[in-house]
């Protein structure tokens, strides 16, 4: 290869790089702010605040275990174009999100960049371990329980955080986002009044849950978690633990078992048969069922199911 050839080769490479870069840059100037979220709940909140000025896509489905999402390359197509990535945080997505972020080749959403938003910073977090954590406790989340969106109060806080971020990214639309946030808050306050009234008669009721997904939800509505079907987070049910749960449920007259839609129902059904309890498949996320289209219908759906179950097991 002569010197001249080498120069020509480098020049061609440079031109190609520039062409590709310009191509991506021009694609960025589309009018809608592109938001990617890890879960459907965050997508719903972002949509509520962003309205028609944003385009929102969630990675995990509402009926999928958010701990175990596969890092499929098709998600990269979404992340590559995103102006903003909103995550649940608290290590919920640790098993699949980091490589997606790295491989996206998108500077806007890299950890710590302006388009990277960890929503957990706005929320009230429960179950932050005070003692030293070890994996003998199972797959524990050392920074606290990541299922915080199931408290409407946290929904409000996260929505406000998102509105702030959107205004930062699109200052021209700040008033619009503020107005949408206000409308969301007003509706949430109103709905919350209904929800609290619905659950008022059942305050203090005990329930058993499959995974530790519900502390914020139970707390908010004054329900009590009597036990977990998983002996430890992420560890499938064991015979000895199941017997303990059955004995406890009989002793304390616990009649409700809440199961997330992505867990096997064999063990919960067996426990229910032994104890005369009722299994309620309760979606913890938007999109968990067809009817659950946003953050409000999530609570409407779940609370209606719960009320029905409480009435049936009076």
């Amino acid at each position, binding site marked *: 290869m002569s010197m001249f050839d080498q120069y020509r080769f480098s020049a061609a490479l440079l031109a190609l790089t520039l062409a590709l*870069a310009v191509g991506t840059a021009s694609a960025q100037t589309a009018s809608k702010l592109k938001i990617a979220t890890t879960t459907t709940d965050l997508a719903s909140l972002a949509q509520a605040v962003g309205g028609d000025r944003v385009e929102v896509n969630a990675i995990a489905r509402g009926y999928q275990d958010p701990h175990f999402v596969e890092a499929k390359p098709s998600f990269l197509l979404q992340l590559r174009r995103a102006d903003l990535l909103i995550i649940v945080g608290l290590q919920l997505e640790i098993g699949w999100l980091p*490589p997606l972020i790295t491989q996206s*080749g998108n500077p806007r959403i*890299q950890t710590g960049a302006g388009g990277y938003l960890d929503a957990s910073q706005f929320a009230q977090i429960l179950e932050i371990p005070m003692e030293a954590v070890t994996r003998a406790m199972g797959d524990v989340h050392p920074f606290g329980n990541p299922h915080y969106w199931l408290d409407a109060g946290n929904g409000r806080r996260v929505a406000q955080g998102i509105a702030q971020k959107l205004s930062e990214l699109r200052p021209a639309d700040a008033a619009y986002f503020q107005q949408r946030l206000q409308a969301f808050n007003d509706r949430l306050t109103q709905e919350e009044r209904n929800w609290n009234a619905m659950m008022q008669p059942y305050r203090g009721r005990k329930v058993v849950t499959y995974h530790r997904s519900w502390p914020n939800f139970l707390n908010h509505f004054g329900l009590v978690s009597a036990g977990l079907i998983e002996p430890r987070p992420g560890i499938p049910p064991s015979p000895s633990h199941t017997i303990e749960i059955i004995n406890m449920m009989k002793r304390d007259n616990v009649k409700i078992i809440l199961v997330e839609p992505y867990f096997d129902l064999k063990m919960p059904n067996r426990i229910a048969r032994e104890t005369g309890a009722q299994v309620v498949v309760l979606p913890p996320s938007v999109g968990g069922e067809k009817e659950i289209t946003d953050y409000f219908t999530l609570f409407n759906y779940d609370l209606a199911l719960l009320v029905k179950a409480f009435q049936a097991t009076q």
Partner: protein
Amino acid sequence: MSFLLGRVRSKRSAVSLVLFVMLFCSTAGTALAQSSSGRMPSTTRELSDGAVPEIRSAQPQAIRDTQEQRLKSLEERLRSLEEEIGLLKEDLRTARAPMGPEQTGGARLVLASAVIPTPGEVATASPQAPAPVEPQAGAAQLPNYGGASATAKVFNPDMGVIGNFVAGMGRNQINPVPALSLQESEVSLQAIVDPYARADFFLAYGEQGVEVEEGYVTFPALPGGFRLRGGKMRAAFGRVNAFHNHTLPWVDRPLVTFNLLGGSLEEADIGIKDAGVSVSRILPAPKGIFLEATGEMYRGDSGSLFQASRRSDASAVAHLKGYGDFTENTNLELGFSYARGHNDTGSNFITELYGLDATLRWKPVRRAIYHSLAARTEAMWSRREETLATQRAFGFYGSLEYQLSRRWFTGGRYDWTERARNAAQHDSGGSLVLTYWPSEFNQIRGQLRRTRYAEGTTANEFLVQFLFTLGAHGAHPF
């Protein structure tokens, strides 16, 4: 009794002998060092020959100083060792005196305690003697790392250790696995470097020594959507070449990677891995299709596959990956790979590799933690130039993995491959695999493997593997 006393006495003499040898070695070593450093200035003098007189006069003075210091420290060590011997003697005497024959095991204990100083005991044994100085002095001289608070550790990288313990049973005359071995202990250190880069280190501690399996910096977001990686890496050739041993769905690597990607009997961790740079970018493609191109350049040294005799003998790897979802549960990945480098015949002899890989995955999203299926295959063609002829070899494997329940996985693999250095010979094999996951940090795997080698022998083996993870929660490979 007397026999046992004799044993104790001989033990004492053994201790003195060891101490003596240690002393001798350190003295001799220092003497040697002195004599060699003593020669140094004279050669400098010969070479420089008065050109830099100030150095000539300064150097011997400095060396004399260090020699004096060394002598002093040696004397000190001698003194402390003598004291320790005295202590040991005392200890022995006190240990022996009240002891019956069945208690001699206790004497051993006292001996051990004398070496690892427990000040209280030593003090009671010989109150007039000062406690051994060295360990305490060492502790006081420990460097003071960083800040005083625990927050100094905030920026430590995520650390993890993965143990890969393999037991082999059965008979294999060609490429035997040790009966029991901790094949690899992989230490991972990963962190974000700064707003522009992240870095990943994977240090593989084998039974023979340590290897930096991978160590690279990644610039994930360069202008134009490019991703740049530099360091030592497993090359993006095919699919499993980039996998670490502990992320494979089998205990071993497929035969074709051994035969065509430069495997050797000495190394369990086979594949193309070398120091170099890698650039990749997602390419524009029809909607729903993911297309990514990767280009890599390496030094050109990888196992017995590539060898760089000159600096310009670099090797290159190119990979094109296509991926598409059929449904939310099913997807297909296809890859084309090419690698080129100089081989060990000489600088003018090239080895070229072509690869084709396909992976079909099924995982029902609603029951993702209970059931899944992966069917994968890789075919490779090797073209190796040698002095007399060019060897063209082909090989492939096909594998099927199915998740039976949350904790149980089963699978099988078929191997057929020619040999890169003698394409007339081929090996084939079949494996059945069963894996149990107590948790995602812990796997126990059994693999029944039958291999028919070109030499005409057949090996039936049963491999058992324990994989265990400490520390950081790594992301799962896809």
